[in-house]
């Protein structure tokens, strides 16, 4: 498995590609999405993870997409938690997918570092 950040997206678009584009930030990097994308879709069009497990650090990319499994909770740069499958992506949104990114950005090494 290549270790580069963008080996590929997890999702691919099959339809509805004529929607208005918007921009948001994954781990500080600006990326594009479409109006009407959920945050989950928007992130998985760029990469294969939305978060890392706070137990093993293993990547996760959601599972049920209907708000039942709670596997796609993400953190925003300002520390809010959002469930990616039921949250629309919005212009300028800033989300984090890496535990390390959470630590650096929130400046809370103890709280998040211990969970690892």
């Amino acid at each position, binding site marked *: *498995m290549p*270790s580069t950040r963008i*080996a*590929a997206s*997890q*999702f*691919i*678009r*099959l*339809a*509805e*590609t*004529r*929607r*208005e584009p918007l921009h948001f930030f994954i781990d500080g990097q600006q990326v594009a999405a*479409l*109006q*009407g*994308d*959920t945050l989950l*879709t928007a992130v998985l*069009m760029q990469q*294969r*993870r939305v978060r890392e*497990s706070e*137990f*093993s650090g*293993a*990547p*996760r*990319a*959601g*599972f*049920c*997409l*209907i*708000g*039942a*499994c*709670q*596997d796609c*909770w993400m953190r925003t740069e300002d520390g809010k*938690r959002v469930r990616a499958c*039921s949250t*629309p992506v919005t212009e300028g949104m800033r989300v984090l997918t890496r535990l390390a990114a959470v630590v650096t950005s929130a400046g809370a090494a103890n709280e998040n570092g211990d969970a690892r």
Partner: protein
Amino acid sequence: MSDERRIVIVGAGPAGVRAAETLVAAGVKPIVIDENARWGGQIYRQPPANGGFERSKKTLYGFEAPKAEALHSTMAALLPHLDYRPDTLAWACEAGRLDTLHAGRELCVPFSHLIIASGATDRVLPVPGWTLPGVYTLGAAQVALKAQGCAIGRRVVLAGTGPLLYLVAYQYVKAGAQVVAVLDTSPFSQQIAAAPKLARLPGTFAKGLYYVGWLKTHGVRIERDVTLVGIRGVDGVQALEWRASREGSPTETIACDAVGVSFGLKPETQLADLAGCRFRFDATNRCWLPEVDPARRSSVRGLYLAGDGAGIAGADAAELAGRRAALALLDDLGIAHPRGAGMPDAASIERSLKRIAAFREGIETAFAPPANCASQWPDDMTVCRCEEIDAGTLRRCIRGGEANEINRLKALTRVGMGRCQGRMCGEAALTLLAEETGKPLDAVGRLRSQPPVKPIPLAPEMYADDLAEIPAEARDE
């Protein structure tokens, strides 16, 4: 509406909408609480309202487009006549009150009568590697396509069992996705044996056969009676390993970057449980269900249950059960049933529901989840996704004699206690406990529900006094 009469419906899927329609037709104005942003439930889920999505209902819902259209337009017409609260989670329920969360704010909703139409989730059983990015439920694979126009990957394997397996495969191939294999854990012989019961609803049966036939003529590989060995990959799915269930069959590896896997559907019974409804073990659904009479009354006075949340029966049954529950509620209020076109009477609804129940028995026979699957789970396989509790931890606890009942196993290992509240791991924990103890599924206990049924924020603003009213834009369709 007088102060002492507060009618609430939870859920705006097929059951909730038809219940609302029936009540409104009789002059009653219910509150309709729905977790989704738009009505339709899961099966008739609509893409986001403001995104500029363009696909027709025919493209989105296929054969079911007329039903989806009818349900959506019924709800749209009902909006002025009810108090609709979308994007609202009902997270607790006790005598006479629901607790709801909307836009980060708590709102207590008292009720005199409550119809719960909470729907279903995929019935999930683990496979080694199932926490890797790229593994989704079959329902999730469908939602990605229906609500977002996406496929879950470039090379997709669809696996598990149930009618959804073939339907999702059909929808994916039709939309241009690459489905490299459909792997059904049920043997074909089981499906043949169920044919007489399935034939009770010839139209639905024929649709199922059509999907399979269509897939075959389009060259999609279908394997039946398979065992899923594991999903492999480092930071995401790279392959799926499977073998024929027959003893001694070799393992085959299929390269793929996404897997959709689940084993039928499972009712969302948490609110009924918190409300105090009596449960019974249902052999057809292989799970505990809240008791309902033919009129959809639960064991709790003033509380009615409709749709898949009270036992999996599908969308058509949900519409009927929603209507029947509303009629029972009207009876209990002493209000006459509405009459007229599109308003079937109670007796004919119950007859239709009986016919569907016989069909459902056929479905559950044809697509039963694999028997004795837990014995094949390796100790290091994750059972609880939320807190990464593995099968070995559960086994040690059971074999050590510390737990022979599911709630005890939960207390000691935290399985079923994470963010999903057992929705993803409960079936697996029960199956493993039953196999380890040699007891039938109904003899190892029922996983008790706890509020909140889904995560809620604990923040001061949640209980702020200036509670936001339902925003006007929620009603603008």
